[in-house]
């Protein structure tokens, strides 16, 4: 019959469905036999971990929403009621709250993995850009989620961050009023943030789907950063990477469980256990740790508009990174200078994180400016120039034959030796 899919599945029910809607064939192709480079290290676990984390956030979030009240006079108490009166409500809330931190830890490692191994380079530019979109949506979601418990930091964090938009010339003030739904952060703001915080994770699901779809067109990068040359270079995703990911998932859950059960308030500001009070400004307004580097960049220059532009610029440079880095070699393994500069960048970002946690006084101002300057220097000057100057080390011929000329044993399975490629 025309149009029906020819299914190979033996189970009659699966076969019947698959004939009409070949999702089993698709899963088999994309996650069963999908050819995956055989040389992944454990840094390649983090994409899968991020995906699991997203599922955990949605699952716990839906149940929290069943018990949460988005009203300025009840939100704080309703969260504490979840902690006390809802069966395992404390588990739901602590998993969700710490899940946000875990999500950013996992995603930041995932991103720095991409930076180190050049996963953003051709042909994976679009995959990378979709990743940056994911990061932006994640940040918006986390920011609005933090407002929901309506503690002091929720309120004042929301006030400070939404006020940033007032830096936009001419229309700034109007934009802020429009965002707030009034003349200050108040009940309408809380209501819309709740609505959007519920919506955006599902948008994330969609964008993550595109991310994976793009990944399955280009195929994965790998620690050597060279292309797959022959079937000898790859393994079927299952059982090799399903098993390797399982190890990573267990370790990830171990860390997550320990955090939730033994130090659930480690990442939480004490101030946020004080109900929001528009009349009392906390002595210091500090965002969640995962925003600190960006917060430091925001405060690095004395101009509000300048700070806002720099902060968004810090993400914008990631967006165009595939074209800023002019080196054809992907993996830092074969880039003797970039390999070191990667660590300098990491230090700059960590420094920015510390700067963001302190009042902009004394040494912190200097550190913040130097690190911000270096951050942009790295992406806007060093990467474009370095690609032209740096002499990369010789690349291996193929993944299954890591040594270039001369050495190396006989190829397993007799992979055909191909001439070395430029990238």
């Amino acid at each position: 019959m025309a149009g029906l899919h020819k299914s190979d599945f033996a189970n009659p029910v699966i076969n019947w469905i698959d004939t009409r809607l070949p999702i089993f064939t698709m899963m088999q192709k994309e996650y069963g036999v999908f050819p995956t480079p055989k040389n992944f290290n454990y840094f390649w676990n983090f994409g899968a971990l991020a995906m699991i984390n997203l599922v955990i956030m949605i699952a716990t979030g839906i149940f929290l929403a069943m018990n949460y009240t988005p009203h300025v006079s009840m939100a704080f108490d309703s969260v504490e009621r979840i902690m006390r009166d809802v069966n395992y409500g404390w588990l739901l809330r602590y998993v969700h709250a710490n899940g946000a931190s875990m999500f950013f830890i996992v995603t930041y490692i995932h991103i720095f993995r991409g930076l180190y191994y050049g996963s953003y380079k051709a042909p994976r530019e679009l995959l990378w850009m979709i990743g940056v979109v994911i990061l932006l949506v994640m940040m918006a979601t986390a920011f609005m989620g933090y407002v929901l418990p309506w503690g002091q930091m929720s309120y004042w964090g929301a006030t400070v961050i939404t006020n940033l938009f007032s830096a936009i010339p001419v229309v700034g003030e109007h934009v802020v009023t429009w965002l707030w739904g009034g003349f200050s952060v108040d009940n309408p703001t809380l209501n819309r943030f709740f609505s959007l915080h519920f919506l955006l994770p599902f948008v994330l699901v969609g964008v993550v789907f595109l991310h994976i779809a793009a990944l399955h067109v280009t195929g994965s990068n790998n620690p050597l950063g060279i292309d797959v040359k022959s079937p000898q270079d790859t393994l079927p995703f299952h059982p090799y990477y399903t098993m390797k990911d399982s190890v990573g998932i267990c370790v990830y859950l171990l860390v997550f469980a320990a955090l939730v059960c033994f130090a659930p308030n480690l990442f939480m500001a004490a101030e946020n256990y004080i109900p929001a009070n528009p009349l009392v400004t906390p002595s210091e307004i500090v965002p969640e740790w995962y925003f600190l580097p960006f917060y430091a960049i925001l405060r690095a220059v004395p101009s509000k508009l300048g700070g806002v532009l720099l902060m968004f610029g810090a993400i914008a440079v990631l967006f165009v990174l595939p074209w800023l880095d002019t080196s054809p070699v992907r993996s830092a393994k074969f880039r003797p200078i970039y390999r070191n500069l990667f660590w300098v960048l990491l230090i700059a970002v960590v420094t920015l994180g510390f700067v963001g946690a302190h009042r902009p006084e004394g040494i912190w101002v200097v550190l913040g400016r130097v690190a911000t300057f270096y951050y942009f220097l790295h992406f806007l000057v060093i990467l474009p120039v370095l690609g032209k100057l740096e002499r990369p080390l010789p690349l291996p011929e193929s993944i299954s034959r890591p040594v270039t000329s001369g050495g190396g044993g006989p190829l397993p399975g007799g992979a055909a030796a191909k001439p070395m490629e430029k990238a």
Partner: protein
Amino acid sequence: MRITRVLALAAAIGAAALGTAIAEEEIHFPAQKWSFNGPFGTFDRASAQRGAQVYKEVCANCHSLKMAYYRDLGGIGMEPGAIAAIAASVSVPTIADDGSVAERPALPSDHFRSPFANEKAARSANGGALPPDLSVITKARDGGEDYLHALLLGYGDAPATMKMGDGMNYNKMFPGNQIGMPRPLSDGQVDYSDGTKATTEQMARDVVTFLSYIANPEMEARKRLGVKMVLFLVLMTGLSYAVKRKVWADVDH
């Protein structure tokens, strides 16, 4: 390459250490040994019960405990009969059958009664200062239990050079050293029925244990679950690693 990595790591840790060092200009309070510290910690039942007594007889004159129920006292080992009696000794507002405002004895399912009807009443009775609700107080202050303990013991005479505000009290642990709360505890203030000597330190320790329980009534269940989950996941990590090794055994990589 290894060396640069080590250097980078060292620099990062150095920066972190520097960061915390620069941050430490605030007041210091000594870390206490609490029964509820650590992954196996539990609330010392006797201490928490004494703390409940201190709260009831002292702090409850000014501070509410809005989110707690009388039944929560069961979590620190009080018998249902005793809890019902404690609740019944308090009367809470209700609406009578004829619609008039009335009072009735509290039930274990009632929230702790607040000492003041509203914020204005609380402020006017306390010289303008607002005694905060204590339901989550140990989570709502940096330093948590250690800070609270130090605060309750931090009263003393103000240095001669310090100009004290009207109705303010000197406390070396409170930010700014002037607090609106008069010294709440002094030796022998309550009579402990279990014979424990009611020193100021003892009462502070007991009431902080109680407040820590009220702020984290789930703590013991949470830690028990944590121990089980960690054991289970250590096992699963080992198991999945073994299977992974076996699956990969035939791969040259």
